[in-house]
């Protein structure tokens, strides 16, 4: 009898070695019914190894319980009745029909002397219909495309009728449309009460469909929880070693992130950005992608440049809107400029409020001015700003924004 305790899988202190190499290190994980867990982490983090341990293929130390029973005391057949696995390598070179392949999922239900009965065929057809492979029923598996083959094998996994479904890198040989489809199936199955654990490459898809993410690095679990709690800038740096910007996409409402082109040499280069009125956003993004240490200011509250700087998590100075920059903020700005290896003055509108930004720029050791059009068109100070601006221009490098990258260190 299947018990219906909430916890379906309980891993406690799992360690796995291949020869002397410690592959999985002290893994503990509980999975409840109805969860869709995405295992994420870079290649070699141990995702596949963990799935194979749960499936009884890899035998580690520690305890793995399926539905309350230690898998060490279970035969392969008993495990197959509880957990099915879609493997990463899906090449089948032997010309079996699709129906025969899907029926193979029924193996654990059949005795040595029992033929597949009508209920096995019905179950197989149901699973094939679900994965849209029923029309391939009589085709030979070795004549299918990679995506079709994977869906057939997914139907086979479903035909096992298990509470736990393990998917290993399901997107590896799928075409894009079906990759999404597979995640939808998995999500649907989890809503029906099945537990799905998937090793996933694509973090965005994982964040979108999984109810919970488990992040691994070098054989350890380093984060576990809801997607927002796991896909964070710190975690991505820790596991993948990338600088990423994580945000909630305002259009789709989903977690999204942007990975910066990692260049650790540039992390020591400090660049200060002076902007406002939206002029700094593109510059900040470009600098961020190239991996520089960025500071910015002084923006007024409500300025879109300030929002952008927030998203990228950089240190920014701000002042109240429609008022001049006060002495304290001005001094801080000057300190930042002095500390920076380069200061960039964006193609921004000049007003009374931000006049002191131009004054501060005079302290720059290296100044780059971005100028896309005649500065007179964006002067709203009646010439006061332009006097300072032309003074700055004398000792600065002036470029169009499209050519900014040419003057960056």
């Amino acid at each position, binding site marked *: 009898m299947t018990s219906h305790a909430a916890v379906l899988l309980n891993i406690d202190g799992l360690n796995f070695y291949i020869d002397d190499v410690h592959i999985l290190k002290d893994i503990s994980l509980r999975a409840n019914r109805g969860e869709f867990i995405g295992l994420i982490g870079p290649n070699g983090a141990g995702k596949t190894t963990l799935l*194979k341990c749960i*499936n*009884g*293929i890899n035998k580690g130390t520690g305890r793995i319980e399926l539905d309350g029973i230690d898998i060490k005391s279970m*035969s*392969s*057949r008993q*495990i*197959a*009745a509880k*957990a*099915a*696995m879609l*493997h990463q*390598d899906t090449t*089948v*070179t*032997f*010309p*079996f*029909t699709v*129906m*025969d*392949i899907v029926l*193979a*999922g029924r*193996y*654990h239900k*059949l005795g*040595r*002397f029992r*033929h*597949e009965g*009508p209920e096995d*065929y019905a179950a197989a057809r149901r699973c094939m219909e679900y994965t849209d492979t029923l029309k391939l029923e*009589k085709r030979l598996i070795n004549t299918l495309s990679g995506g079709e083959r994977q869906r057939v094998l997914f139907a*086979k996994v479903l035909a*096992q009728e298990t509470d736990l479904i393990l998917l290993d890198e399901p997107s590896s040989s799928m075409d894009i449309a079906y990759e999404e489809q597979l995640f939808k199936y998995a999500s649907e199955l989890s809503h029906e009460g099945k537990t799905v654990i998937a090793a996933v490459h694509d973090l965005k898809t994982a964040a979108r469909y999984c109810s919970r993410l488990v992040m691994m690095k070098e054989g350890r679990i380093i984060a576990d929880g809801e997607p927002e709690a796991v896909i964070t800038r710190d975690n991505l740096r820790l596991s993948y070693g990338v600088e990423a910007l994580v945000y909630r996409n305002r259009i789709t409402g989903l977690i999204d992130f942007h990975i910066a082109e990692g260049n650790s040499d540039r992390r020591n280069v400090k660049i200060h950005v002076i902007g406002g009125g939206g002029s700094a956003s593109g510059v900040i993004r470009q600098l961020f992608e190239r991996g520089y240490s960025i500071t910015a200011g002084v923006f007024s509250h409500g300025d879109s440049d300030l929002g952008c700087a927030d998203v990228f998590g950089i240190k920014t100075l701000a002042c109240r809107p429609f008022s001049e920059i006060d002495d304290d903020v001005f001094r801080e700005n000057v300190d930042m400029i002095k500390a920076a290896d380069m200061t960039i003055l964006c193609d921004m509108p000049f007003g009374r409020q931000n006049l002191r930004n131009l004054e501060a720029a005079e302290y720059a050791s290296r100044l780059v001015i971005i100028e896309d059009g005649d500065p007179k068109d964006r002067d709203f100070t009646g010439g006061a700003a332009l006097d300072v601006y032309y003074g700055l221009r004398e000792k600065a490098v002036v470029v169009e924004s499209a050519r900014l990258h040419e003057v960056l260190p």
Partner: protein
Amino acid sequence: MNDYNVYKKMRTVLPLMLLLLLFTIIVAVAVGAVYVPLDRTFRIILDNIGLIDDPALPQEQVSIICRVRLPRVLVSCIAGAALSACGTVMQGLFRNPMADPGILGVSSGAGLGAIIAISLGISARSIYTLPLFAAIGALGTVTLIYMLSLRKGRISPLTLILSGIAVSTFIGAVTQYILIKSNTYEVRNFVFWTMGGLNGMMWEQVRLITLPVLALLAVLMMFSRDLNLLQLGEEEAQSMGLEPSKTRKLLLLITSFITATAISVCGPISFVGLIVPHIMRLIIGPDHRILIPASAIGGAIFLTGCDILGRLPASGEISVGIITSILGAPYFLYLLIRTRRDGEIF
């Protein structure tokens, strides 16, 4: 609906093959130095198993057929079925179309057992002595190779093949050393055995191999679904509930035992276990539920057919092992060339 696909196929293909086998048997019994017409051959067989009673049949023909030809043909059927079915299972186990019981050292081990029995001079003492020694040699060698390739309770196919080659070579050398020390008569006896001959088979040999071979073939067929699963890959099979390691050990043991039994009486006949499974796979596909019985029947037809060819030359009989090699080697090369061209073996 098209349910029970493979079983439907079995119900049409297997009876047809059995009919062909029956025909082959009758022809094989009819031809030889004394030709007996086919219809009379059939009547003699029926008379012999008590289905009809015809006292008018010529006694010397009855005697030739029942005492000499029928046991010989039955041994060739059983041995052919054994070698071919075991080849099928081995190829399935290793997912390698080139695998056959020979790689497990069955032939070389049986050879060593045979030469020991011959050189000790005890092979003439009873017709069971040589087969017994050959079987012990075969199983001993298989066990040794098997133990050498065990790693943490698992067999790695590559290690198995490599240790198979090494041990077989070593045992071949020992066999040859004993041969050098043997006299001409013993060498001749041994060479005759290694050529794989069905000459001189009697009802004793039929009795010796029929029961173990047929019983174990039935056991192999019980594992056909497991073999199908293994074709999808070892880990895949385990995910579906198979114990690949256990299954492989058990099936290796059974195939070695069947092969050892067969070649202990008729010598190491090559290529039957390679060609017939290949042809069958091409004709009826990879499903072991039908492939194993079809290969068994096909092997019986093939070996008996080869024996007929070997008995045709008026100048004297050619050992069936020579015929299978003459037919088998070119076919094998053809397969290799075709494989290279098509990029896949099946």
